[in-house]
């Protein structure tokens, strides 16, 4: 019989590697993409240039990077907070859509009206929308112990259908010849542009603010500490007197609220109206952002920029090299795959064991033990 390969936990995983693993994953992703481009018969050099260099070789390109990165960074930070607490909210996409619906509906309510209060109100409504959607998940988790991975994911599809229903019905543009779209929002409901002749809007600054706040929360406050303790050792949290369900509620409301904010920013920023589809999967991509960013707000900022580039690069590659748009998804998938693989190999090492089956389970002599 062949020797079996087995994962054995490393006693002291290298701390440096923990932070280098995203870089390693990026390098591996690049190598895999080069192979992929070769198979598709495209010059890897041209493809990489189109993918990574060209999109950011102009001011306009950089501003577009900011536009795409804004929702990714926002949600990446939001999810990092939850993931740190061991709350696996993977339905940020749905919370983003609800934020878009609430914010968009508010914008339509103030159609052709003016006032300084309109935009703040839209953003607050967006936050409330996202929170509402996340609150369902929190309720199901804390009351019925329903797994938040499933409920939050499933609610994403409900949210998408709800948006579809509304733009086909109640929120449809009355003068829009039955196209499933809302009216274009009035100027008073559109986010101010911060760089002339680009689409870069004030939402990018809000995202930076959220990075700083998230960082401060996690590293400086009692709440951030509680989040980390509940994520590392729930029983220790209980020992201290922290309530796990309170942390579940808080992290879900925070991440839902920020995802909702991102939704409201998207519809009042680059989109400017409600469409059946307001996000190219930002809520899901943000999961990769959070992980590549090592669940750290500043890491999420860097990772958000990288993943934003993958969206832009995908578009350029589609236009210039006639590559399918799925290249973006493939790139993102490869990146997450290599990151998880690197993380596993940092925590564990591969060992070949003799083929004889071990019948008796090993004793759990981990902590304290005897000798």
């Amino acid at each position: 019989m062949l020797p079996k390969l087995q994962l054995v936990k490393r006693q002291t995983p290298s701390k440096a590697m923990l932070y280098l693993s995203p870089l390693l994953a990026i390098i591996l992703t690049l190598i895999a993409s080069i192979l992929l481009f070769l198979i598709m018969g495209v010059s890897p050099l041209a493809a990489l240039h189109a993918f990574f260099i060209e999109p950011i070789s102009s001011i306009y390109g950089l501003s577009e990077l900011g536009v795409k990165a804004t929702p990714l960074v926002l949600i990446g930070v939001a999810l990092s907070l939850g993931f740190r607490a061991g709350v696996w909210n993977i339905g940020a996409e749905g919370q983003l859509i609800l934020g878009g619906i609430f914010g968009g509906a508010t914008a339509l309510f103030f159609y052709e009206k003016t006032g300084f209060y309109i935009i703040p109100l839209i953003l607050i409504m967006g936050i409330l929308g996202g929170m509402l959607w996340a609150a369902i998940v929190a309720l199901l988790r804390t009351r019925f112990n329903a797994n938040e991975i499933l409920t939050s994911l499933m609610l994403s599809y409900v949210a998408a259908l709800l948006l579809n229903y509304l733009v086909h019905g109640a929120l449809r543009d009355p003068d829009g010849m039955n196209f499933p779209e809302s009216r274009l929002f009035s100027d008073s409901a559109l986010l101010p542009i911060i760089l002339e002749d680009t689409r870069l809007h004030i939402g990018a600054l809000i995202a930076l603010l959220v990075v700083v706040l998230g960082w401060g929360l996690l590293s400086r406050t009692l709440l951030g500490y509680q989040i980390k303790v509940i994520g590392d050792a729930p029983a220790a949290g209980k020992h201290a007197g922290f309530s796990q369900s309170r942390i579940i509620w808080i992290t879900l409301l925070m991440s839902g609220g920020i995802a909702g904010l991102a939704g409201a920013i998207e519809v009042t920023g680059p989109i400017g109206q409600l469409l059946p589809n307001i996000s190219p999967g930002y809520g899901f991509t943000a999961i990769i952002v959070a992980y590549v960013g090592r669940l750290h707000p500043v890491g999420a900022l860097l990772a958000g920029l990288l993943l934003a580039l993958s969206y832009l690069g995908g578009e350029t590659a589609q236009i210039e090299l006639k590559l399918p748009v799925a290249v973006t998804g493939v790139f993102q998938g490869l990146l997450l795959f290599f990151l998880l693989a690197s993380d596993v190999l940092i925590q564990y090492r591969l060992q070949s064991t003799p083929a004889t089956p071990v019948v008796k389970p090993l004793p759990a002599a981990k902590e304290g033990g005897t000798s």
Partner: protein
Amino acid sequence: MEQNTYLLELKKMTKSFPGVLANDALDLKIKQGEIHALLGENGAGKSTLVKMIYGILKADSGEIYFNGKKVTINSPAYARKLGIAMVFQHFSLFDSLTVVENISLGMDHQSSLKQLAQQITEISRRYGLPLDPQRHVYTLSVGERQRIEIIRCLLQKPKLLIMDEPTSVLTPQEVEKLFVTLKRLAQEGLAILYISHKLDEIKALCHEATILRLGKRVARVCVDEESTSSLAAMMMGEELQAFQHPQKMNPGEVRLGVKNLYAKASDPLGISLKNINLQLRSGEVVGIAGVAGNGQDELLTVLNGENLSLEKGSIEIAGKSVTRLNPNQRRLLGMASVPEKRLGHGAMPDMDLSENAFLTAYERMKLVHKWFINYSKTKRFARSIIEDFGVKTPAIEVPAKSLSGGNLQKFIIGRELTQKPELLIVSQPTWGVDAGAAQTIREELRELAAKGAAVLVISQDLDELMQITDRIGAICGGVLSEFYPTAEMSIEKVGLLMAGVKLNEELQDAA
């Protein structure tokens, strides 16, 4: 041929782990029919050595001879084939299966359940290990569960039986029965490698002893020629100062009062607490003995506020009802507690020492200012724990899981004691801690009481309780016994309490 006279002979066994040399060129020889003690403090390398004999770990270098032949044992299955069996400290049994089903699962060669049940009954009768093959494991006591493991081993007709600290989960009466069985087995020619750090057990049971210290073999002795204290000196490398028995204090005001408390277990296999009554006064150390899994965890979490779902009854700390207060609110009233499980309950494995210091101390030590953590103050607090309690660590920035069990325990106890609690509830304070550190911890608990605090010690270590407590009782099946002055109690009497026997009934029976 000298080698032929030994059943098992180890030569220069060496094994290192990152950062430690766990076994340094160890030799060991066991004859047929010999009960051989492997003696050493926690961390001396006993488990590592037997794991190599049983094929769980692979030696870096060294030779193993079994029956005079050189062997390479690279799996437990091969060890069993040679005739080596092992009873682990932690049992691997399925609670919802019967005894015979459990044993059948661990057998290398399958036979029918009926046949197996017959064999089990036969062995259990022959060696005085009463056990009904058809009982479900969850209905059995820990002692009975251990019998399953022993019978499982004996069914393989081993030549060498390894037992890893088998008495840590038994009452004194059960220990006596086990020893009778082991001596009988040895008379029939079975060699037994008996791992322990309890000296009186080794005096009572073993013929020869190999003593380890810090991974090295310090001596091989004939047990009858040594005294308990000379064995202790070899084990620890220095004579331990005898524990000063506590000065009698007049108990002061009531610090903890529990009345008619009932609490249902949250876990279906957990233990429900029934009619708990308990009073702790300042200045006294009260002990609760008991075999593991009789409601100790449940009692601790109900008293410290982790579990607030009581059925009835009341808890008062310092005269105030705390029945509905969470752990932090109880801490503000002067309570501190140390749970049995260190990593994951008393400390967060992946967080660093200053973050771990903060966990239970931030209210009393005022480490939070308006939502924000005062990091410099927290670090100072963590450093003072490390200095005052002699915690060995390279820095405070290391994760808790990188500390050895004993050092982490010193850190956790230090964290609680530095807060100057008026009531300390501690479970298994010295479990898995080396003898020197254990002694320090015991002295600190006594000192805390001498300063006027009330201390409740829940422990499975009877010697420890006899040594440090003023009053002692036991918990059995979630029921708390009466409490008696420790000075008037013997180990045997506490053993009866641990088995759920009421002392005056016993006296009546005897009369």
